[in-house]
């Protein structure tokens, strides 16, 4: 680690803290339907959308109707996305003449983008036409993010309201999120990226003759418009296979910093939206504190481990030290302009959230550094998290934490003035159990069937980590990969199922919690109320997250990264 590296991490942290209140305040106004500076522009657009869709914005929905609306919208998206991929060869804006996607790849990719996962079993620059990237993938980068934030709103309202039958209107939340929050930021952000060097063109790939006379075909495209929402909506699916390591997606140190900030900003601001809506910002800051501490813990494991380099490469007489003009460390899969500090930080940021964009290849991380992204996702991506999903995941853990505290002192647990009873706790546990069921279940199957291990790049414990990472990433809707794993029918279908389970089987119980909480009265705090906005609660919540979330996966982690680390220390190669 270097002083400069720590300074770069500190700059990132300060930027996030500075954004929480302004962005949180703005988002709160948008979702409460208050007037904002963009209302004159977007109110008329909003009205047209509602009228054309037959939506009555003033009519609110119960949690069941809200959930049905969300599911039907996701279904409509999956069908249209699948159709675009299958018809790609006869649709316009396909200058490279790419063929239609095969059915299993189209299915996997459609589910992947609708669930905000953006796992990619394809290379963008050799598979997707410009049309598929624009009206297919870019659209779902917007709406899957907006869907996640809408769901978080429904759940926040569950806590904030008293004796209510409704949790909001899905169509209104969705539309306002796209128009007032994601779109304006994406426009400014995309133009910034073009300025930094990200291409934005509909022209065909460029043929160049290099200085030494060789032919080089340079892939370009409408990259910036997709890149902006890819980060902002914690989507993470790259225009190119190289994702944010590709110089055309992430050309400079400045674009890299802004990309990392944009991954965290919405998730961090949502803690403040929660605090404001339940009437006490401190409640939001307590959740922010939990997230912040877990984020720092991950960062300061990955960074020193990566900076230490690979002992086997050091033994060959390679200089991995940090010095003047030298980045040092484990540079396999990393870009020189980012170096170790920015690559380590990006790795933690992208897996704390459900983003999954990468500016370095996670498959080539050192064993213990590669374990952190696994843990981050397995905890449920609650460390700022996916836009929306991070907050409701954290609230689920908060319910469990308050329940545990209630058991210890023998009182009925309360959170934000709501009595938590059997139904809420059962539903939260149900949601929590989806993660290990899908991650560990599918990993176990894949390691014993020939199709599961047929397409691994690495063998030994690292090969096992590749499998574990794949289902962890799919179930957590992250989308980053130990990308040596190649596609086949088995992988494409099981991953699609895992992505579906991780998104929708998690959301439905959480909406049920929102519905039942909304119907409850608010209990005024008494002397016996366990306060949930102080350091004790932060510590308790971290403990519950690590014990409930972490211990479940420890045996699997021991078989992968831990064994690999010990083998590496002993000089074994695979």
């Amino acid at each position: 680690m270097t002083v400069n590296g720590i300074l770069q991490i500190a700059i990132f942290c300060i930027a996030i803290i500075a954004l929480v209140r302004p962005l949180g305040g703005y988002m709160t106004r948008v979702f409460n339907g208050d007037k904002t500076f963009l209302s004159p522009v977007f109110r008329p657009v909003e009205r047209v959308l509602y009228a054309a869709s037959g939506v009555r914005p003033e009519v609110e929905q119960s949690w069941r109707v809200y959930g049905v609306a969300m599911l039907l919208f996701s279904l409509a998206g999956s069908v249209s996305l699948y159709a675009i991929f299958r018809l790609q060869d006869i649709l316009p804006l396909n200058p490279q003449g790419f063929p239609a996607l095969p059915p299993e790849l189209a299915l996997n990719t459609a589910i992947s983008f609708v669930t905000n996962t953006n796992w990619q079993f394809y290379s963008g620059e050799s598979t997707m036409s410009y049309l598929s990237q624009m009206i297919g993938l870019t659209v779902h980068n917007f709406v899957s993010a907006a869907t996640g934030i809408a769901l978080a709103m429904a759940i926040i309202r569950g806590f904030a309201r008293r004796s209510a039958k409704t949790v909001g209107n899905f169509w209104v939340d969705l539309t306002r999120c796209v128009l007032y929050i994601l779109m304006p930021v994406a426009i400014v952000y995309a133009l910034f990226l073009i300025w930094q060097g990200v291409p934005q063109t509909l022209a065909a790939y460029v043929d160049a003759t290099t200085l030494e006379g060789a032919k080089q075909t340079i892939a370009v495209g409408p990259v910036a418009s997709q890149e902006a929402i890819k980060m902002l909506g914690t989507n993470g699916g790259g225009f190119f296979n190289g994702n944010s390591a590709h110089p055309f997606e992430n050309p400079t140190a400045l674009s890299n910093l802004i990309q990392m900030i944009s991954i965290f900003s919405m998730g961090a601001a949502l803690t403040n939206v929660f605090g404001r809506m339940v009437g006490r910002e401190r409640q939001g800051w307590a959740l922010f504190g939990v997230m912040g501490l877990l984020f720092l813990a991950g960062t300061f494991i990955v960074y020193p481990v990566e900076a230490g380099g690979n002992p086997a490469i050091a033994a060959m007489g390679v200089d991995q030290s940090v010095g003047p003009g030298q980045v040092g460390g484990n540079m396999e899969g990393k870009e020189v302009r980012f170096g170790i500090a920015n690559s380590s930080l990006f790795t933690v940021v992208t897996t704390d959230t459900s983003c999954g964009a990468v500016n370095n290849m996670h498959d080539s991380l050192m064993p213990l550094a590669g374990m952190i992204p696994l843990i981050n996702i397995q905890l449920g991506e609650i460390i700022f998290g996916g836009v929306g999903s991070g907050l409701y995941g954290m609230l689920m853990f908060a319910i469990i934490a308050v329940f545990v505290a209630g058991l210890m002192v023998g009182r009925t647990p309360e959170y934000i003035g709501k009595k938590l009873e059997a139904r809420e706790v059962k539903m939260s546990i149900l949601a929590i159990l989806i993660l290990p069921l899908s991650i560990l279940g599918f990993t176990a199957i894949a390691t014993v069937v020939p199709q599961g291990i047929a397409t691994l790049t690495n063998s030994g414990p690292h090969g096992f980590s590749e499998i574990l990472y794949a289902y962890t990433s799919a179930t957590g809707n992250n989308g980053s990969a130990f990308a040596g794993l190649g596609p086949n029918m088995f992988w494409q279908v099981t991953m699609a199922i895992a992505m579906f389970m991780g998104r929708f089987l998690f959301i439905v119980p959480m909406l049920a919690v929102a519905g039942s909480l909304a119907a409850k009265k608010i209990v005024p705090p008494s002397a016996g109320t366990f306060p949930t906005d102080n350091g004790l609660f932060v510590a308790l919540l971290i403990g519950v997250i690590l014990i409930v979330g972490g211990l479940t996966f420890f045996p699997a982690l021991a078989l992968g990264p831990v064994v690999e680390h010990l083998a590496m220390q002993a000089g074994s190669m695979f």
Partner: protein
Amino acid sequence: MLRQLRPAIMMMVLLTVITGIIYPFAITGIGQAVFPTQANGSLIDKDGKVIGSSLIGQNFTGEKYFRGRPSATTDTDPNDSTKTISVPYKADASTGSNLGPTSKALMDRVKGDVDTLKAGSDQPVPVDLVTTSGSGLDPDITPAGAEFQVTRVAKARGMSPDAVRRLVAQATERRTFGVLGEAHVNVLALNLALDAAQPAK
């Protein structure tokens, strides 16, 4: 339930128009008007022909040029379509090696590169010169990676090492605002500067 079906379909259609058609076309229009160079891929022209992009690395093999980092990009083997062959810096097929830290294949590759580099120099090899980048298209090397190659390039061109060093120093980009990222040398820019100082023929 079915009452939500019409909004589901209509919202998908309308939001596709807004976010998938109006938004990217508007960004393309503004981008092409305001930042035409960047929007088209930061291409470099020489004598009216495109010789590459300032952001995309190239595969340099000659003694008279600085070389970039190893690249993991591949292409289909023309003789056997089930296999791939190494085609470094293939700019329409970005990829990293995806080899893990205990991979024999990785160690063999690094060892090969180290042996080649050590044959021409007795200095320790900077790590960026023997590791592949995440994209396979990294346009940069570290200043140490450039320094490692100065003697070879100077000898091949009959220039003094200090003259080459001056060009390296000019091509070195420091951290943004003195803080962000890492110092790096754009290999293509450096080689163009070399050719300008002393044509390669």
